[in-house]
């Protein structure tokens, strides 16, 4: 996988890019002040968001950054065949209004 197709800049040398990790969305905090059980549930969701990984052997959805231009985008990549299936603007995922709920899927 020596050349990656950046949605903004076109095909570029893979060394110009950095992998930004799995696409994940931060949990929405729902616990009211003083709700201990609610806070513990929030904490479990934060731990899951920060530390836990799908780490799939197969097609994954990841953030990538073209470091030379500072452009972040989404890539779908097969981690068993070392190929990029698709790269696209994050607008495709982030086109929903920010409200309650995790905002994805």
């Amino acid at each position, binding site marked *: 996988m020596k050349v990656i197709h950046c949605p903004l800049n076109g095909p570029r040398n893979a*060394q110009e890019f*950095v*992998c930004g*990790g799995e696409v994940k969305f931060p949990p929405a905090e729902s616990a009211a002040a003083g709700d201990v059980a609610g806070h513990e549930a929030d*904490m*479990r969701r934060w*731990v*899951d968001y920060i*530390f*836990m*990984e*799908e*780490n*799939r*052997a197969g097609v*994954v959805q*990841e953030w990538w950054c073209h470091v030379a231009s500072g452009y972040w985008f989404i890539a779908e*990549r097969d*981690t*068993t065949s*070392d190929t990029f299936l698709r790269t696209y603007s994050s607008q495709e995922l982030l086109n929903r209004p920010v409200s309650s709920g995790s905002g994805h899927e």
Partner: protein
Amino acid sequence: MPLGLLKYGLRKKYQGRRYFPAAAPVRPSYDVVIIGGGGHGLACAYYLARDWGIRNIAVLEKGWLASGNTARNTAIIRSNYLTPEGALFYEESLELYRSLANELGINLMYSERGHLTLAHTDAAIRTSRWRAEVNKHLGIDSELVGLDEIHRLCPQLDLSDKTSYPILGALYHPPGAIARHDAVAWGYARGAMERGVEIHQQTEVTGITIEDGQVTGVDTNRGRISAGKVVQAVAGMSSVLARMAGLKLPIRSIPLQACVSEPLKPFLDPIIVSGSLHVYVSQSARGELVMGGSTDPYPLYSTRSTLDFTEGLMGPMLELFPFLRHAKVLRQWGGIADMTPDFSPIMGLTPVKNYYIDAGWGTWGFKATPVSGKRMAETIANDRAPELLRPFELARFDRLQQVGERGAASVGH
């Protein structure tokens, strides 16, 4: 006159000791099923049999024996880690390694060379001093040394100020050693087998059965096996197996590549590591320089190796040893490193009853083969992790209690 040897050589029948089991059918049930026939899984089986009298064990290996990271590491053994939890853990492994060849009755080619972690910046000197103090406090032989001592230990290193990143000092760990990684696995395999453990190669686990929050067995390509207890020790495939048990892990599987040079006359005594230059090197008993660097830049389930890697490694190698510019790289390969956020392993119990985990070994697993085997056996036998393993439990992330070993575990992060 070695008459005994002469008699042995003239015998008609060779009394060999079998290393690997002949292929045999899997039985429908075992007390313990160990998923993963690498160094860790085999060591676990050996100590379960030796220390706890548990012999009704099946080790299931999807490929050939120890074909995963056990076959692919650069075989460095040391205990000069940063945290007290880490240092104590790896020191127990080092102590086990020292008598392991005798115990297993196999030549491990264990060679204590001394380990030098070069410091090229003031920050690195400070961290090296911190590590040295923690190590000494725990009785581990580790010290910050200057250029004179580095020159005495390794006269071939370029210590001039003409390099891009001049060396300022180093963390010196005299007990640092290298060994033959395959022999460690074979020794544990034979020791386990001779105590009644069954080892099944070409046997891949395809599913894990859980009833009422408790593991009851595994599905394999050779049928279903019931088990009282199951442990996964599969390194790079940890997340894949854990998913079968309904668990999510804080692990990314990222390739770690390595390469060897053509055999050269012995010139390099110690093991040299440079965090700033992202390279580590030792010279094997065959004269080959065994070289490695940082992990690949993105997660991948592949053991392929790349031109990027060797190209990137040669610059730092020639910075350290300029006279090697005509030496040839002979062979390169990769392993799949199960990287954790704190560069410490994950060992012990899981939320699934009777399901145990030995994972998150990243780039630091080979040196821990004996201690992980011994202490995971203890954990499985008692259904309770010993104190030494407690800091590494999976639940530590729930409490935000990482055991941070980034600087001491690897280069280039």
